[in-house]
């Protein structure tokens, strides 16, 4: 490679990276982040968006450039140069994707771990008397949310979710509340055990960036900690029949006080104030 073309490459690659990184950092197509998972997710998203933009724009640039540069002049009837391979180049473009992939893989592993996805399911939710510890739990992300210590685990709010065609039911064992709407206090780690009565459904809150299938016969667990008060949609994300599109509910994230009010009003077994 001559110095000139090296310089040229450099001059092209730097802005490409700049644009890619700028896109990743500044264009945010995601809804607001309302759980501890969501902010970690967005971090991953920005990185992937940057890498993806760099690769895509670079590729499109390369392609359009060669289409313009090397298009056939009308009078030219000859062939191009018979270059059949180039080992250094081929090693280069095997190595670059490999490195990118390794980086992305390790990084997303780290993110997943921080989301609590790597925690063994055997321990999930065992501190709740309502869960038989012999029961096999089939997984789900956030089984043991971010920053959950032994102590915070004990403070988890435990909710049982039942999905059926075409609704979600939320059962709060503590106050024996059954509700069609999910009410949770801000900053409180939530632990949900989910099971379906008929077909497969999926519990999805886009603002929390979590999704877990709700499967008949195989209970799954989902943990999260909401961080912003507000009302967010709960969406069923697995085709479950004609009214799949209408199978929605709401999660109401509210301040501790309001939550307690709601709880008090609906609770069948009044809890003793601590």
């Amino acid at each position, binding site marked *: 490679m001559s110095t000139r073309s090296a310089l040229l490459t450099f001059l092209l690659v730097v802005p490409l990276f700049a644009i890619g990184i700028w896109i990743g950092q500044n264009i945010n197509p995601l*809804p607001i982040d309302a759980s501890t998972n969501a902010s970690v*997710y967005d971090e*991953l998203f920005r990185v*992937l968006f940057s890498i*993806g933009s760099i690769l*895509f724009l670079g*590729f*499109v640039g390369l*392609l359009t450039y*060669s*289409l313009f540069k*090397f*298009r*056939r*002049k009308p009078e030219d009837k*000859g*062939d*191009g*140069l*018979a*270059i*059949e*391979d180039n080992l250094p*180049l081929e090693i280069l*473009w*095997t190595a670059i994707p*490999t490195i990118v*992939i390794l980086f*992305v*893989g390790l990084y*997303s*592993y780290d993110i*997943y771990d921080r*989301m609590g*996805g790597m925690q*063994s*399911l055997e321990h999930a939710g065992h501190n709740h008397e309502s869960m038989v510890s012999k029961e096999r739990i*089939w*997984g*789900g*992300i956030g089984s043991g949310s971010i920053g959950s210590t032994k102590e915070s685990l004990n403070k988890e709010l435990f909710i049982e979710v039942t999905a059926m065609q075409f609704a979600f039911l939320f059962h709060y064992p503590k106050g024996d509340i059954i509700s069609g709407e999910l009410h949770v206090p801000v900053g409180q780690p939530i632990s949900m055990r989910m099971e379906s009565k*008929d*077909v*497969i459904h999926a519990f999805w809150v*886009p*603002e929390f*960036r*979590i*999704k*877990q*299938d709700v*499967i*008949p*016969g*195989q209970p*799954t667990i989902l943990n999260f900690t909401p961080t912003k008060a507000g009302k967010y949609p709960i969406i069923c994300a697995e*085709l479950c029949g*004609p*009214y799949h*599109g209408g199978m929605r509910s709401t999660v109401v994230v509210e301040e501790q006080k309001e939550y307690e009010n709601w709880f008090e009003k609906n609770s069948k077994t009044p809890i003793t104030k601590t």
Partner: protein
Amino acid sequence: MTISIQPQDNSPKESLQPKGWMTYFSFSLDHKVIGLQYLVCGFIFYLIGGLLASAMRIELTSPISDFMPRDVYNQVLTLHGTIMIFLWIVPVVNGGFGNYLIPFYVGARDMAFPRLNAVAFWMIPPSGLLLISSYFINGAAQSGWTAYPPLSITTPAAGQIIWIISVLLLGGSSIFGGINFIATILKLRRPGLKLMNLPMYCWAMLGTSILVVLSTPVLAGTLVLLSFDIVAHTGFFNPALGGNVVVYQHLFWFYSHPAVYIMVLPAFGLVSEIIPVHSRKPLFGYTTMVYSILAIVVLGFVVWAHHMFTSGTPPWMRLFFTIATSFIAVPTGIKFFNWVATLWGGKISINSAILFSCGFIINFVLGGITGVTLAQVPFDVHVHDTYYVVAHFHYIVYGGTVFVIFASIYHWYPKFTGRMLNENLGRFHFALTFIGFNLCFAPQHWLGLNGMPRRVAEYDPQFAFVNQISTVGALLMAISTLPFLWNIIQSAFVGEKSGDNPWNALTPEWLTSSPPPVENWLGEAPLITKPYGYGLKEESEKLVSEEDIDVNLTNQ
């Protein structure tokens, strides 16, 4: 190795087969006829599948379910997915172009098993009609092309059973085709032709056929069990009877992930034929291309559970499948870099074929990159089963494979008919398709990220505007089909005569007349050891000279 070429004599003889266009409606054993039968039949199913897609897109212009009832939407959705995959993409890129080209490429007069070949083709129209007829009988299947139980067990049984039967038949046809391709490529090569001399499409088809033969039977077995659950009330996948629904998903994706490479590897092969011809350069990195196909085949078998990241799979499994899936980007990337390197420094004729090929590269790279993001478990738990996934795979199957099919038709039409397609109409078709396609599917990424699940007829009104944009794109795509249809039909009658080798190509199929004689070559099949020898002195001179190419190349 024994050679199958029959004793030759060059005097023209009368064919015993039906004449003229009637051939195409007969049980012909000629691989060229079968190839075209596949292509035309597949294209008709594409129009039907596209019509269904348009209906879905029209339904989705408004956030409420108004254009059709909800259960009909699900039927249309299921039919669209099934038709597009099993009756359009798979038969066309495998059966269609494979049958037409592979015997030429290996220097044979037909496939290894012509009769099996014809049987494989003739299984397709009846199963396709059966599938579509289910809509009129008692309502088609409505559990999506994935047919996850228990939904598929609890929805009306008739439609689901018909769906299973036709997918089984189509799978059988695909297995027969795969066996035929493997035997043809490995066993029927002309003497002197080494594996490493074969045009890239042969390698792609070899890899694809291995995938077909190893994975399709698993789908067949699974669907048989599913039908037992529906008909005989067994409980394999029915939790009410102690069954396990996730096992179905494993078995299904064990087939259906390889199936996505069954849909795209042949397309990779086809562009590898098209790009060198129109840029007048040898295919860059032949050897690495071959190895990357083999790598994709192997990796393709160990990534299936990336469709099940939210199905309650254990953490170690998700991690393994994330890594394995991501690594497919490496061999795939090699192929893309090689294509760009083939274009680089060439003398590129910017015609419809090359435009569609480059459109393919752009769309596929985008779809591939979103695929790699989907492979990351933490990323996927948010976007799984949303329009982000819909956008991903349409970028690949439509922006990738369908674009390649169009490119191939522009490239090989002169071979099929002896006439050129109208180039201006072709560019117009490309422009409309490219714009319509991106308008339709690019916004769907945003929809998915923001909370629109897939397979819904009604959705949050905040998404209405973006969905309308998408629908406009879809309608543009539908309109773009019209100039193409007009072009292929009228050019068959009034198109400019192309001569035998309008592109001055070096691959074997062009070194005979266009359209080819029934026995492919009047003389012996030429021995082409450098199918991409553009720019290499001897080959190009030979083409410029007016002598009989067959003789010349055989004697070298």
